[in-house]
């Protein structure tokens, strides 16, 4: 893994859904580099390919054409299990709909990725509790999603994403289901993780207010990168 190069590097990435004439070109040749430690916001109209790009960056999906290098390693052709191992070691996901396991406590939800990594129970408990403290949910460890507000659930999801200490956090519309005040709290949390822990964050959002937290803003239109601006540190 090279220190100098970009953490994420997409080159000529295309993603087609379906075959032949009726195929949908969700991504139509995307070239994109994301440096380690940056906080990137992806914006663009609905259907412009933002989620598709996130799935590929998150190794949940593979490009139809083009190459994807993660931390300098070509991961384009990895199989299912190899991508799963990559995800659980280096990637964290936060979704619009929180996607916590129902009827499962916050602590157990946060522990889940560590279970799949085969960590012993004691270590898991400790790390999960620490991640929950980090997102400001101390005391709510034993609450189930149904007993938590939307903002709290999203915090649990963030704790679950960072408990493995990933290199990259991917958040697809993390504030899409939250009110403004709660959205800003989540953004503060992500900004803190980015600044204090050097966690690279890539976030899709429709709201310019939220995108303003990022240091770089990328605009997707029709499966292309149509705009890319980097702000000076505020």
């Amino acid at each position: 893994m090279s220190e100098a190069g970009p953490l994420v590097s997409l080159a000529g990435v295309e993603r087609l859904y379906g075959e032949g004439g009726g195929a949908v070109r969700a991504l139509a040749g995307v070239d994109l580099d994301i440096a380690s430690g940056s906080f990137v916001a992806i914006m663009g109209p609905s259907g412009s390919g933002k989620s598709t790009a996130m799935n590929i960056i998150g190794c949940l999906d593979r490009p139809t054409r083009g190459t994807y290098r993660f931390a300098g390693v070509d991961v384009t052709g990895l199989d299912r299990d190899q991508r799963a191992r990559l995800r659980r070691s280096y990637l964290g996901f936060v979704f619009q709909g929180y996607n916590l396991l129902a009827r499962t406590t916050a602590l157990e939800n946060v522990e889940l990725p560590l279970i799949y990594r085969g960590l012993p129970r004691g270590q898991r408990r400790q790390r999960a509790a620490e991640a929950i403290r980090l997102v400001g949910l101390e005391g709510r460890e034993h609450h189930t999603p149904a007993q938590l507000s939307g903002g709290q659930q999203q915090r649990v999801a963030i704790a679950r994403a960072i408990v493995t200490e990933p290199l990259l956090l991917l958040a697809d519309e993390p504030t899409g289901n939250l009110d403004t005040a709660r959205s800003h709290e989540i953004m503060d949390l992500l900004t803190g993780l980015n600044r204090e822990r050097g966690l690279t964050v890539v976030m899709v959002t429709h709201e310019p207010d939220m995108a303003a937290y990022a240091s770089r803003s990328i605009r997707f239109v029709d499966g292309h990168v149509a705009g890319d601006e980097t702000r000076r540190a505020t």
Partner: protein
Amino acid sequence: MLWETVKLAMLSIRRNVLRSVLTLLGIVIGVAAVIAMVTIGSGTSQKVQDDLSKLGSNMLIVRPGQNTFGPPTVSEARSFKERDVAILRSQLSGVRAMAPSASKTTTVVFGALNDQATVTGSDTGFFTVQDWTFAAGRPFGEAEVRAGAAVCVIGETIRSTLFGGIDPIGQRLRTGGFDCQVVGLLEAKGQSAFGTDQDNTVIMPLRTFQRRLAGSTRIANIYISVANREDVPRVQADTERILRELRRVAPGAEDNFTVRDMTQIASTLAATSTVMTALLGAVAAVSLLVGGIGIMNIMLVSVTERTREIGIRLAIGALGRQVLTQFLVEAIVLALFGGVIGIAVGLGLAGMAAFGMAIPFAADPRIVALAFVFSGLIGVIFGFFPARRAARLDPIEALRHE
């Protein structure tokens, strides 16, 4: 990891208790049927074996006529004479003991109490051929047999109904108008294979019986105890040959007597229960198949319902095989749960049957273990397809699933 998976499986079963229990009905019925039938079956055959061994081992019973087996009775066909017994005694080899006998059901009286009992006249060999042991006193001896002495040996039922707390040895028991002195008390045997109380018996020398009770010299049965099991067929054939001669049965004509091998009857009864076992086994197999399909169905429903959960697990880095293991373990735990309930129900039924039918409760730990393992196996077989379906889900599609 495995323990986590098992806990997870139990959790998801607990969330849907009613559904899980209904799903398991097939396995419960199948396993319960197997356990109940095997346990009742071996209890029954154990009972039959016990009963027949109480009759005496390697025993041939010779009777006049061609009647089917049942409690020994004096047949209307020509009975045996002492000469027949004497000739059999001198000509047969490999015989451990032989005893002629005749019986009669009559009233026996002691003091103010009386009872109906089977009174049998025989000789000293009788106790050997029927494997009687003595609780007190002694058998009557050769001299007493020859003399036709007024002595008798009584069974446990007679002692308890007529003598109560009194020691019967040396007492005088009145039967058929004469008194005999009780010289021995037999150890209790319980019910016979034919449901009669074997202990409600008085045994006296044959001559005494013939003179004082029967008023005739007829012999109803001859018991022959063969020394070695493998000699039984030969002794049986020899007995038949000798008796045909003695009783002047024309060549080609049917025997006017029966020589029955009691051990053979035991195996006939055992064979009957094998047929029953096979039949019930088929019923159980069908139930288990239905149970397996039930498990497969519920697991498929579960995979569909939990598509989103599977998507989450896959997204955060679960390997396909970890998801497969989870669902497979869930199916196995579900099936084992059904198996355990089935075993409990089966043993319960067998216990009630054992109580009701007065047979021993013959629970076999090996069969229980086998049923347990087998139900787990059903979980594996029928859980595999749904589990593989879960493992092969596409994480993105699964996450989008509502």
